[in-house]
């Protein structure tokens, strides 16, 4: 306790001896710990509690005489405890405002008396007794405690010296207890401290810089202004005067938020807090925050609001941050050439900075070959990274131009390129000769005129630019900046040369990212609508390569690139016979399409392409006879077909016909894109019909023979799956023996193929004769085997297919033998709602058709409980499917009994308020079946299920009527339910339903009315005769 109080507690720094404990979370924690220690002391260590302190603990209390009850002698305002020490002094003495306490037992009692002011008392006690241990045990002991001496034998010896104490044993124990407390407190506090962030000058400076950038005008600004109180910065980065730096203070700020009064802030290593704002008065007047942003967030609502808007920017973090770690080639020991190297690097540095002033923090630490970095070492990098995170929050606003564009890019970006770790030669001795050569050439480009630059660029092109060493060499010697700068000149030839190089080196992920970070992509986008054909084509081609990651795609869009690219597509209308000139135009269009293809992986770009009128142009290019043109066109279309608007357009613009035609080409890649375009579009019925009409189905089936090309196979099977949603198509597929081929594909295929194959099999199995075919081809077994997979999309399809197969009795026998029902059942535990519902639906026919279904269900341990628990799901589809399953299970009386035991009745009753017709139908069915057991009918009535059921009769869905009428019929066997039904006006709609064509329905409705009527008659009789 001693050490903790003297070292860890945060005392105010007032000069007088009477220190005050600050109101910090840490002190709060400390007080609470001590309090609970004292509170429990007398119960846990009764003997030690009696020990009399060497000196009384004395403090100013808020307690008055009236607070004390029995055990105390009260006279006026003075209170004495009845407990006395050996010399007859009271162990507690209150003479307001002071209180003197001489034992833990009294301390404990006192604390219990104070009720809600416990903490204040402890605080006052500690503040007035800076050395409680000394007072409790005497100075010699306290010294022992203060020191780190843990030697207990010495302790005993010491105690024995002071023989006058009879209670030596207690004293030692007390001492140990206190020591223990001290240790625990320190551990707790240490833990607390370790969670706090220690600020350093660099971090503060960066944060201030970034906040400065976000000041200014405009609605999204975060602050009005932010200023240091002192312009002078010490060499250690602090701005606080040296005598304040001793206290860990770094600098003082004056911040004007937009919506609240001016804040005077002290930044210290312990955190950021408000001060009084007067000269030389930096005392803390608020809580401490870990950084400026969190302080401002709590002080200025508008700041919090605006910064939250930009929070999404953080998503970018991982990618950008990673690049920082790209440590460049060290030039440190390169000897001779180093001088020029460094200087040149500085130039580049300058340029880069001018180019992206907004990008400061990012640009600064990337791409340059920075020997300096090595000196700064890891530590520096670390703190920079720390600030970088918060800087990113602002990168958008500080750029100024583009306020808040949401960063969500298309979900189809699964094939997103991943950051590759950079491979580097271990040391600079391994640098290839190309490196020095390229470095020289880049120097020439900088110094040469147009002719010389072109010659140099041509020389540079002779390098193997697809090779990583060359690519990185160009980047590391600052070549990228030079090449990008050339794009902004007026020299056509230089631009061409630069683009030719950029196009090639962009095959590297790092180069792509670097180009985008340096703003090179903007320059390229600008060139797209230049007048030189060669430039247009090259620019588009380069975009096609660079725009392979979201940020690049976004950049293209934001600088109007999509519109320009779409314009390139508008070339000749007749693509068959071309003049030389037209061929050039077509080539440009091809490059444009390539670029759009890359861009179209982002949802927003898809929209942008559509808005720019790209769809009809793509449709026109689709008629081109050249594969090189068709691949990007179809690729773009299939990419975009994930959007509803595109699917409609593809259908209405008559592109399905062309797509089917192209499907007949013999280029695998083209066929693949075509098939996946059809895959996506065939969600629509009309499209499916069109595919059949243009004889596309046969082509699709023939693609299945190319089983080696998995991508093609996945696309083709996908298209077959979606097309087979139409039964006419299934019949047509039957002519080509598609099902046999598909069943063969059920084994040994990658998951993306399997999902589609199984999906298709599931659709095929809707037709009875196909069910037999699947069995005959041995399809059941692989299907059941797939039930053990983990891919959710696959499981949904597999359960569906198994369910469809199970509607055939012969199939069911096989499924049962393979233990398929248990497998499907266990999928109910899958976390995905889709899988759950799909499995439940599949169970219905299984239970229906299995032999000894009741026995089978019972044999599944915990199965029924699982089903009942799923009634707590929030997904309507799951609920509907589970209700349907329950209806099937409940046909077996024993199982119904188990279901009832698991509380199925109240759960079903709770669901009755739904408005979802699909759920209503199956729910009513389940209720109808569950009525057959014991008092369930009455229980449903009590649970209030009857009234909502009556309302179901108003639904427009006739299948709801049917199951509801059945359920009502069952429920009406309970008189109370009849009364409720009658009250709710059930008779009229039931009579209406009696007129239905369906016999079952007639019967149920009539039966229900009869029950109501019988009750009424019985009632009348009772009234009449008794």
């Amino acid at each position, binding site marked *: 306790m001693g050490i903790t109080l003297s070292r860890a507690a945060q005392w105010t720094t007032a000069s007088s001896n009477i220190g005050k404990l600050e109101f910090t979370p840490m002190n709060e924690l400390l007080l609470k710990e001590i309090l609970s220690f004292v509170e429990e002391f007398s119960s846990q260590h009764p003997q030690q509690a009696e020990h009399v302190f060497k000196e009384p603990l004395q403090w100013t209390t808020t307690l008055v005489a009236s607070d004390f009850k029995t055990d105390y002698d009260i006279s006026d305002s003075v209170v004495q405890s009845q407990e006395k020490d050996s010399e007859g002094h009271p162990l507690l003495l209150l003479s307001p405002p002071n209180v003197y306490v001489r034992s833990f037992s009294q301390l404990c009692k006192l604390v219990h008396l104070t009720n809600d002011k416990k903490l204040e008392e402890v605080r006052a006690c500690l503040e007035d007794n800076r050395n409680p241990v000394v007072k409790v045990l005497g100075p010699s002991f306290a010294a022992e405690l203060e020191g780190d001496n843990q030697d207990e034998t010495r302790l005993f010896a010491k105690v024995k010296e002071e023989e006058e104490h009879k209670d030596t044993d207690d004293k030692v124990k007390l001492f140990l207890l206190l020591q223990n407390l001290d240790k625990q407190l320190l551990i707790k506090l240490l833990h607390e401290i370790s969670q706090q962030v220690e600020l350093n000058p660099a971090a503060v400076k960066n944060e201030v810089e970034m906040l400065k950038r976000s000041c200014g005008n405009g609605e999204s600004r975060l602050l009005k202004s932010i200023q240091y109180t002192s312009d002078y910065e010490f060499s250690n980065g602090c701005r606080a005067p040296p005598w304040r730096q001793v206290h860990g203070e770094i600098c003082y700020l004056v911040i004007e938020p937009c919506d609240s009064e001016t804040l005077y802030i002290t930044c210290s290593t312990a955190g950021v807090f408000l001060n009084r704002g007067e000269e030389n008065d930096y005392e803390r007047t608020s809580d401490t925050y870990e950084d400026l942003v969190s302080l401002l967030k709590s002080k200025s609502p508008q700041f919090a609001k605006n910064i939250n808007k930009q929070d999404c920017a953080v998503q970018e973090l991982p990618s950008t941050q990673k690049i920082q770690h790209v440590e460049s080639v060290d030039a440190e020991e390169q000897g001779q050439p180093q*001088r*020029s190297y460094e*200087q*040149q690097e500085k*130039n580049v540095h300058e340029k880069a900075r001018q180019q992206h002033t907004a990008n400061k923090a990012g640009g600064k630490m990337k791409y340059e070959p920075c020997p300096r970095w090595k000196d700064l070492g890891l530590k520096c990098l670390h703190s920079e990274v720390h600030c970088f995170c918060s800087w990113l929050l602002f990168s958008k606003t500080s750029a100024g131009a583009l306020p808040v564009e949401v960063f969500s890019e298309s979900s189809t970006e699964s094939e997103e390129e991943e950051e590759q770790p950079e491979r580097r030669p271990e040391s600079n001795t391994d640098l290839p000769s190309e490196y020095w050569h390229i470095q*020289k050439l880049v*120097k*020439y480009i*900088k*110094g*040469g*005129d*147009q*002719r*010389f630059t*072109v*010659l*140099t*660029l*041509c*020389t540079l*092109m*002779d390098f193997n630019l697809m090779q990583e060493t060359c690519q990185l060499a160009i980047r590391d010697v600052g070549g990228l900046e030079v090449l990008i700068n050339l794009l902004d000149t007026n020299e*056509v*030839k230089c631009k*061409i*040369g630069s683009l*030719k190089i950029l196009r090639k080196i962009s095959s590297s992920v790092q180069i792509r990212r670097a180009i985008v970070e340096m703003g090179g992509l903007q320059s390229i986008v600008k060139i797209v609508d230049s*007048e*030189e054909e*060669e430039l247009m084509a090259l620019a588009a081609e380069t975009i096609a390569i660079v725009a392979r990651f979201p940020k690049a795609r976004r950049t293209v869009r934001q600088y109007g690139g999509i519109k320009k690219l779409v314009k390139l597509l508008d070339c000749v209308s007749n693509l068959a016979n071309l003049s030389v000139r037209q061929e050039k135009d077509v080539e440009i269009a091809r490059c444009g399409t390539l670029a759009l293809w890359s861009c179209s992986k982002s949802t927003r770009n898809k929209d942008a392409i559509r808005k720019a009128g790209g769809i009809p142009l793509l449709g026109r290019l689709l008629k081109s006879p050249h594969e090189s043109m068709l691949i990007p066109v179809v690729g773009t279309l299939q990419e975009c077909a994930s959007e509803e608007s595109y699917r409609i357009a593809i259908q209405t613009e008559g592109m399905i016909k062309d797509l089917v035609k192209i499907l007949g080409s013999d280029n695998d890649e083209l066929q693949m894109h075509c098939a996946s375009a059809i895959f996506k579009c065939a969600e629509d019925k009309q499209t499916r019909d069109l595919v059949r009409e243009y004889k596309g189905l046969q082509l699709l089936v023939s693609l299945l023979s190319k089983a080696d090309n998995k991508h093609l196979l996945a696309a083709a099977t996908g298209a077959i799956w979606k097309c087979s949603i139409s039964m006419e198509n299934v019949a047509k597929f039957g002519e080509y023996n598609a099902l046999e081929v598909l069943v063969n594909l059920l084994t040994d295929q990658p998951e993306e193929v399997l999902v589609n194959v199984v999906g298709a099999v599931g659709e095929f199995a809707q037709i009875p004769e196909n069910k037999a075919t699947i069995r005959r081809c041995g399809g059941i077994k692989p299907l059941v085997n797939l039930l053990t997979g983990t891919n959710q999309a696959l499981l949904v399809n597999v359960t569906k297919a198994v369910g469809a197969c199970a509607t055939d009795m012969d199939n069911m026998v096989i499924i049962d033998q393979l233990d398929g029902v248990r497998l499907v059942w266990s999928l109910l535990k899958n976390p995905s709602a889709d899988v759950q519902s799909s499995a439940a639906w599949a169970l219905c026919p299984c239970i229906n058709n299995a032999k000894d279904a009741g026995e089978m269900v019972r044999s599944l341990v915990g199965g029924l409980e699982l089903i009942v628990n799923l009634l707590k799901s929030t997904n309507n589809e799951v609920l509907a499917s589970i209700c349907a399953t329950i209806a099937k299970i409940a046909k077996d009386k024993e199982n119904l009994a188990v279901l009832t035991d698991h509380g199925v009745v109240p759960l079903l009753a709770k669901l009755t308020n739904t408005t979802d017709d699909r759920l209503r139908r199956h729910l009513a069915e389940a209720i109808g079946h569950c009525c057959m057991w014991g008092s369930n009918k009455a229980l449903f009535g009590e649970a209030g299920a009857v009234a909502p059921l009556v309302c179901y009769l108003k639904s427009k869905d006739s299948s709801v009527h049917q199951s509801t009428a059945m359920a009502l019929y069952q429920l009406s066997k309970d008189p109370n339910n009849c009364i409720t039904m009658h009250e709710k006006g059930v008779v009229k709609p039931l009579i209406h339903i009696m007129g239905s064509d369906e016999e079952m329905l007639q019967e149920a409705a009539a039966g229900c009315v009869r029950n109501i009527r019988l009750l009424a008659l019985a009632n009348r009789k009772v009234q009449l005769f008794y």
Partner: protein
Amino acid sequence: FKALFSNYLDNLKNIINSKAISKTEIECLICDFNVLLREQINPGKANGLDRQNFRSILYNKFGMSDAIIMDAVFRTFDTDVDSFISVKEWIEGLSVFLRGTLDEKIKFCFQVYDSNGDNYITKEEMFHMLRNSLIQLPNDEDPEEGVKDMVEITLKRMDYDHDGKVSLADFDKAVREENLLLEAFGTCLPDRKSIRGFEQQVFQHQLEK
């Protein structure tokens, strides 16, 4: 006279033997040539444009500025080496300028760059043309060294038959491999913009008349 003129035109057209340029266009070019001739400071002295006048035309109308190259272009235009550009030479030259195929352009550029007319571009010729092309280098390195270096590299690149100099065949091959090398040693063909400007001025203006 008209018949005579038309005959003359036909002849001219045959001589020039270019499909790219039409009869009317030739007519326009002749008119323009006459206008230019009249503007010449010492008209009538010879039957054509002198070097100085030609250079100012190259500068004003086709945006060329390098004196060495302009002289070389004059030399290339002036096929009969009489120091004047005749009508025929004018039209022949401009047909390459305005409508030249890649073949014609390669040949033209080669002739421009082959300053002594020995059908080879030598190291010295290259160096002469590129002399001032490297402006400055950091660290006060000698730009001339850089130019020499680049000449070596370029020569190595273009010299397919390894005879230490670039023949027309070498040049042709190099340019076909990399189009940018066509005007490697200096701009000697007009760019698209000035072509359009010139055509607009000469053809349309003349047609309106």
